[in-house]
């Protein structure tokens, strides 16, 4: 069953088209990343799903049904910024969220503990640091232990420890069977945390599917020798590589991740009478992959 399915969603702001016909499905039990650079339409899309923005055209379904507020109560959502009453404490704010979600207040101490805010639960929200506000927003999402979480840039503004904690939390919830939809502009984050991904670029869906397929990386082997033309004809007989290119007086061989064997390359060349003066394994940078996908 699809937790969320979008059908040709368009959103225009005057002449600006924020979303240009986006359709995809989020399967149950996945960590679904929505990846895109700033301004690609991620938050707009999540806003439409949460009924705070109205789509210009198109439809969407939650849990396979026409969406209502009852569906939203089963989803813990953190959208764009932590939104709380500034004059109320963390605990008082969570009481309001819990009441709206129709959950009891029994969960409040537990979720505050999960995000390390127990000690500050009586402080006003306005006295919180950015990271604490962010953690409170995540605590609010966890109220009532929802099956589905929607998190928009959940690690924004957190320190490295906080980021690691959130990622560990997402992993834990995933293993417990939750579905997590997470928007991010950090490719690295999506790669580390998500099982599935949809990539948005200027309001258009450029790719969607399994993370390993979409963000498949390649190993790059750079080799060099005194006689480059001889080297080139020789390496053409090497097994296993997917493509080859020449750059900066070096030959670059591309291998599927984890299949590279430097030793056999070296031996092959030596047997052919070529002594290598350069042999290096390089991982393709994720950033360059991101640019490739979104440019």
């Amino acid at each position, binding site marked *: 069953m699809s937790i969320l399915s979008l059908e040709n969603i368009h959103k225009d702001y005057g002449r600006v088209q924020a979303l240009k016909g986006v359709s995809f499905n989020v399967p149950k039990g996945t960590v679904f990343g929505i990846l895109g650079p700033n301004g690609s339409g991620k938050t707009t899309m999540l806003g439409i799903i949460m009924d705070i*923005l109205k789509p210009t055209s198109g439809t969407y379904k939650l849990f396979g049904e026409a969406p209502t507020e*009852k569906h939203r*109560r089963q989803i813990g*959502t953190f959208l764009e910024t932590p*939104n709380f009453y500034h*004059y109320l404490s963390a605990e008082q704010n969570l009481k*309001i969220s819990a009441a*709206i*979600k*129709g959950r009891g207040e029994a969960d409040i101490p537990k979720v505050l503990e999960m995000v390390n805010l127990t000690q500050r639960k009586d402080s006003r929200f306005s006295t919180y640091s950015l990271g604490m506000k962010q953690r409170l927003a995540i605590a609010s999402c966890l109220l009532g232990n929802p099956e589905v979480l929607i998190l928009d840039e959940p690690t924004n503004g957190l320190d490295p420890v906080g980021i690691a904690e959130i990622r560990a939390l997402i992993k834990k919830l995933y293993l417990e069977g939750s579905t997590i939809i997470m928007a991010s502009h950090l490719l690295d984050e999506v790669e580390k945390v998500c099982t599935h991904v949809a990539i948005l670029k200027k309001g258009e869906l450029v790719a969607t599917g399994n993370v390993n397929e979409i963000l498949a990386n390649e190993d790059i082997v750079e080799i060099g020798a005194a006689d480059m033309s001889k080297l080139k004809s020789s390496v053409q007989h090497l097994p296993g590589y997917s493509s080859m290119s020449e750059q900066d007086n070096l030959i670059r061989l591309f291998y599927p991740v984890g299949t590279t064997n430097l030793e056999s390359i070296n031996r092959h060349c030596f047997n052919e009478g070529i002594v290598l003066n350069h042999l290096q394994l390089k991982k393709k940078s994720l950033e360059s992959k991101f640019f490739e996908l979104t440019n």
Partner: protein
Amino acid sequence: MIKLLKIEWLKMKNYTAFVAIGLIFLVCVFGVNFIAYTFNKSVQETPAAMLMGSYFSFPNVWHTVSWLSNFTLFLPGLLIILMITNEFTYKTHRQNIIDGWSRNQFIKVKIVIVFIFSAAATLWVFIVALAIGLFSGGAFSVDKIYYTGYFFIQSVSILMLALMISVLVKRAALAIAVFIAYVYILENLIGAIINGLQYKNISDPSKMIPYADVLPINATDSLVPFPFFRELLNKAMPQMNIYILLGASLVYLMAYIFISRKQFLIRDL
């Protein structure tokens, strides 16, 4: 609805401005009436004023206190504006929807709060009028108690206008400026222009038709007319029919509710 109101209460009870403005309102309603009462009493001791009758004994006290209290209604009006623009400022209107309210539930409960605030304000006006009436002596009477009912209509109307302005402009400072400027200045200006245009053609003021009385704030204000020297004024100036005033008040109220709901239900939040 009780569930929704309980949640609104969670938002309100620890909001300093709610408590402060609430208390200021209670004190002001009592204060305005008490000052007027004391002043009236001191004047009445002169023989000439004795003839004017007492404005603070039954049944006139219902009318007098309702009229005097009307000037304090901008206080709950400000409170409504603050409570609604806070939601926009903190983006909690979004969060409430995200967490599982429908847009309709969000706006519906605010509209109900306007009625509750008005009922509470009317109850206080009733208590103050009762107290002053009993205090000033004379036989108890519920004649003219309908003026407290008119006060309720005034309150609902002005608070609903505050709600509509808040939903339309979203920002506290701007909403307060628009509200105060319209209620206390702009509408009077428009009324004066309407009357002025008529006065050009009619020389006898008693023949004028008080069209200005059906402007949004005037319509409810005119339900409780200036209570002093009433008989003299009735002769000098024509009054708008009470049913026309009630009808106009109702039409404006429906318009405020309709516009507020429409805005909140269809636009991007």
